[in-house]
């Protein structure tokens, strides 16, 4: 649905009763599914914010980071959205919360090298 669209097309696609809003960062697509009357521009800004937070959390985030640390990207996402609603809109606060959570889990079973996974973001799964 999203993949065949070119960069010249708009980032909103109608899908049944919902809208699919997506943003592409290099080879990574971040896809969100929203209600019909939700603000598309807002959604795109939120996607962008998510990416920025990931970026500062991982330090220049790349696909591999997300794949290996999929749990972490979920946790970051959880700090931004709860039940599909925006929870925190300050990047610093999100980052702080995510790091605090990590700190609490210091002796986490943390494992070495990272591996690969398809280049689709999971954000769609998390929004309603």
């Amino acid at each position, binding site marked *: 649905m999203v*993949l*065949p*669209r*070119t960069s*010249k*097309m*708009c*980032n*909103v*696609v*109608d899908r049944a009763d919902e809208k699919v809003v997506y943003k592409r960062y290099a080879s990574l697509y971040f896809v969100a599914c929203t209600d019909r*009357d939700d*603000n*598309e*521009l*807002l959604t*795109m*800004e939120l996607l962008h914010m998510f990416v920025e937070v990931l970026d500062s959390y991982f330090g220049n985030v790349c696909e591999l980071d997300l*794949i*290996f640390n*999929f*749990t972490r990207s*979920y*946790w970051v996402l*959880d700090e931004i959205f*709860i*039940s599909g*609603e*925006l*929870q*925190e*809109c*300050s990047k610093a*606060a999100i980052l702080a*919360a995510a790091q*605090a*959570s990590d700190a*609490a*889990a*210091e*002796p*986490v*079973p*943390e*494992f*070495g*090298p*990272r*591996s*690969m*996974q398809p280049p689709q973001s*999971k954000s769609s*799964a998390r929004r309603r």
Partner: protein
Amino acid sequence: MFNGILFQQSLQDLVKGIRAHRRDEEEYIRSKVAEIAEECRGADMAKKTTAVLKLTHLQMMGHSVGFASFHIVEVMSSPVFASKRIGYLAAAQSFSPTTDVLLLTTNQFKKDLTNGKLQDCSQALTCLAKLVTEDLGRDLEHDVSLLLNSPRPYIRKKALLVLFRLIMVHPDTLPVVSQRFKDRLVDSDPGVVCAAVTVTCELARASPKSFLSLAPLLYQLLTNKESNNWMLIKIVKLMGVLTPLEPRLGKKLVEPLTTLMRTTRAKSLLYECCSTVTSGLMAHPEAVELCAQRLGEFMDESDQNLKYLGLLSMKKLIQAHPHLALEHRDNILDCLDDEDIGIRMRALELVSEFITKRTLRDISRILLKKLRKASAEGFSTDAVILNGQRETFSDSTSAYMPVTDQEAPYRQSLARQLLKAGEYKRSAQTAKSGYDMLLTGDDFAWYTTAILGGLAEIPLLSNEIRNKIGDQLLELTSRVEALRPISVKVALSLLSARRKMSAVRAIVDQKETVSAEDMLGVEENGEPKNATESDTQINGISKNPDQPIGACSQSSDEALLPPTLAASNAWVVGEYSELIEDPVAAAEILISFPRKGLDSADQVRILTAAMKVYASCHEDDASRLHNVIRRFVDSLVDNQFAEVQERAWIFKTLLTACVEGSGNPLAALFEGKLIPVDYRAQSKIPVGGGLDLNQPLLDTGSDSLFTHLLKTIETKVDDGDGGDDDNLFREAVFANSTLSFSGVQMGSSNSASGHGPLLAGLPEAVDRGNNPYYLGATSRSNTDAKTQQDQLSMTESKSPQQFKYDIPQLSTEAAAVLAEESPSGLKLSDDERELLQSEVKPADERLEAAFKGAFDGTNSKETGKDGKRKKKKKKKSKKDRDSASHKGRDGKEPAVEVSLIDFEDASATSSSREEAPSSFVCRAISLEVLTWLD
């Protein structure tokens, strides 16, 4: 490896392993799942945690992990936060409301929510937001609502949002927490306020009324300079929901909203403001003006998203304030060229909003041009060659989806939009029915040539659209008299498929430069040229047109006129054949139209049209055409479709009757002009004095009428001489008309004209033959229709002199009288129009049944409905006869002639005009019956 867990595969190993086993991924994963299940069963919590982590990954990849639900709950309840966190995540990802272990989690949630540890609480809340069910909601609402007063903003914020989910699944929560909820809107922490606004906004969408009381508070937040954009958007959205309920709120909002729209630099906020204006502030001109201005800017943007959203919002705005559309017209039309089909579709929706009588032509022309372009692009499988600028586009998409499929909805919408103007508006009041957009004859001429003609030649339209084009051509032509010469011309040029592009173009170009008055004159000048063009085409000499070849003409060579369109066009040509300048060429176009792929109804239409053209032409032309037509009919006699065969036989018999060189005998059949009549008109004519409609016409004694008739025929058959041509002709007419029109009119004639026993028996017998309910009743019903016809003809040839071929002035008079009753001959009523569409088939079938129904009894189309229709018709034809003979008396003509006349009339109609739309008789009968039944 770590934490002393030897030999356990880590998440990374798993992911790597999956990637290494691309070929047998399924199998590899199955073995791993078994391994993980084993690990889960162990007592070591760290090992279990890793197993659950791996499971979460597998779950994300789309594998079912239902078997491990219990182990996930175990990990969730681990005292170690690192494990707990993974457990919660796994639960959030893999549990569904129907997961049975969900019941076990209630206590765990309760414990974590109340134990005062920030991180535990946060994880529990996050997970709860995902999992909440009604049971969980009922059990946990108290704990969560207590958290609203937590000293930590972080928790308050999360609790608020989780509470929203709780309320959604368990609405009873709302009254309990509403006060605490309200307090959060004035929380000291902006994040909490933002969350509270978000929740309010979402809840208000479900039931706006209960949130009106919060409006002042929200208004305060809206005007507060410190509010951030995220929150403002939510508030503005919320206001958009509330304003329709409370108009005064709208008035108050105008000022802050316009300020916001002027000052903000955030496009999303601006857009939200515009949405709110379109939903709630339509009554405030200043806001609307500003909104339109801003949306116009959106559409100007190069950013596709803004364009799309601008169009989306603009549509709502324009629906309420159509005048705003004019300013942005060009902008919107530009969007029709966009590469994104979504944008084009939105723009098209907008276009339909600002089409008016004045702008119709301009916009239609533009739309047609776009459609041509779109079709050409879609038609060419190689979009790259056709249009260089789309190269990159087609390259990147072709791998996923063919261009054609994506573009189809856009093309159909364009065509549908174009056809809107030609739709007849039905209204309960007759005065309001009609065409909204088309007023003058010029309008209609333009619409037919430019739009219908233009659309017909566009390839790649769906059948639905094509049927619509055909229907409209037919309908417009029969409704609008002034249009007929032009329709005929368009239809002819469309039928000459290979050259149709240039021919229609010529007409269109001509049309656009001439005004309504001198149009017909120019038409005549232009005609010879068209005719010669058609001629060359027929002879198969496809000389290259000199006109520049557009993208469409490339494809039109391959795309003949689709069958349904061909049939409608043929009908128009045939029905108004007296308007054709060069009947010979017209007939040849019809004859040479490729029949491949046409079904029987379409072929019959073309055949009938050719006959009509032949019948209507002058002596010279007729003699020129005679042989051509004969050959054509002969070629159809062994057509694969029975119906076409039947028709061809009838015409063949007719033609045999025509002596070559003696003028055009068929023309006599068309002298009387039949005018459409309002369906109520007939009922206004009183039944003549002394007529008893219930009295049987003749007494046949104990015999059934049909038996009586057949007996008579049998006695006559033997000494029938086959007749000369002249006789044959009459016979055909006779057989045709009696069988299809029940011959009831003859009832009164037979006594006076002395037809003897044969005719005395005919009417009712034939009537029964017509009636499907009698089909199987007689032993003769299985005889071939042709035999029957022959029999009739032969017997009838005994008394040929009884028949005259003058077409009854009287009948025409009657029609004229009837026509007076309706406001105008052009305007058909709604019912009539429907019949016009629906009658085409049944009329054909009636004729068919008359000949054929008696012998095969399996005529699949003889359904109950048609049967009923026929029954009604029988009743009606009695009435018809009554009124006709009544007229006859008034007209001081002998009753004998009246009946003959009626009979002739029917024969003319049935032999060459059997298609219902043209046939006054057919239509009048069925319409009358319908009204009468009411």
